[in-house]
């Protein structure tokens, strides 16, 4: 099972994400933003957290127009999987692979702390390792995590069971307490919290490990 982790200037969770993928059993390749193609046979692309291109213009905007992101869009259109965490979620909304946008936190402060989430659907390769409604604790670290979407889009996300995770105590003003959403075909997940920072005993919390185990496990031939 092959995973690729994108690296932009300013990415700072790329190696953490690679470790989480690897610990779950994936064969991981790091891919530089100027590359125009993903390695042959990649099943899932990880778009890591950080501050790609210094958050210039808008968070994730420049990264979303990089050569490698054109390849990611094609990968997703072919039915490939993608996981965007934090800045990666912002990149996914900027590419249009996920709807809505992420704006400055309503409280204007950078929020860096563990938060409680509710697993809002188990119907995806990313969330099938959790119980429906399970409460998990995952760290957040962002300044622009305020998910914004018009009412009709929020209704659609609810109707189509595409809200993957919700905040128990909303830290950033996100509409409908949304912490993570799925694409229409359920193969792309974007979320602001960092499951890769809660994925092994040394982190003091392993609530994020089930996401990687489920994802990598489902894509690994038996």
């Amino acid at each position, binding site marked *: 099972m092959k995973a690729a982790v994108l690296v932009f200037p300013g990415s700072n969770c790329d190696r953490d994400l690679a470790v989480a993928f690897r610990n779950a059993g994936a064969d991981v390749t790091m891919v530089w933003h100027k590359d125009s193609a993903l390695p042959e046979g990649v099943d899932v692309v990880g778009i890591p957290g950080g501050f790609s291109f210094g958050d210039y*213009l*808008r968070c994730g*905007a420049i990264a979303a*127009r990089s050569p490698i992101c054109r390849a990611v869009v094609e990968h997703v259109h072919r039915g490939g999987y993608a996981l965007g965490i934090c800045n990666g979620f912002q990149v996914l*909304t*900027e590419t249009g692979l996920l*709807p*809505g*946008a992420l*704006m*400055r*936190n*309503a*409280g*204007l402060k950078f929020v860096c702390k563990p938060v409680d989430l509710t697993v809002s659907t188990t119907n995806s390769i990313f969330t099938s390792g959790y119980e429906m409604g399970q409460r998990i604790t995952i760290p957040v670290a962002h300044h622009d995590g*305020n998910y*914004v979407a018009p009412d009709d889009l929020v209704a659609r996300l609810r109707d189509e069971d595409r809200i993957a995770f919700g905040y128990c105590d909303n830290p950033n*003003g996100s509409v409908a307490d949304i912490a993570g959403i799925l694409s229409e075909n359920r193969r792309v997940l974007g979320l602001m919290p960092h499951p890769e920072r809660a994925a092994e005993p040394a982190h003091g919390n392993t609530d994020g490990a089930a996401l990687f185990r489920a994802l990598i496990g489902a894509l690994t031939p038996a």
Partner: protein
Amino acid sequence: MKARVHVMLKDGVLDPQGQAVAHALGALGFEGVDDVRQGKVIDLDLAETDIAAAEAKVREMCEKLLANTVIERYDIEIG
């Protein structure tokens, strides 16, 4: 040819930075500031000499990169 692009949050999109500026103005004693919206100004220096062509090109730039039309609107000034 010069072009100037104004990017603003769409009406109805909450602008926490604008609100913080409004509060700070109130704290400085400026009364009667009902609302503040904060945006961006982007100046471009273009090789294009035809006004209509320049405007079309800048509009495409706005749609593809300069604005996120999910939450932002833009205005273009040419010349």
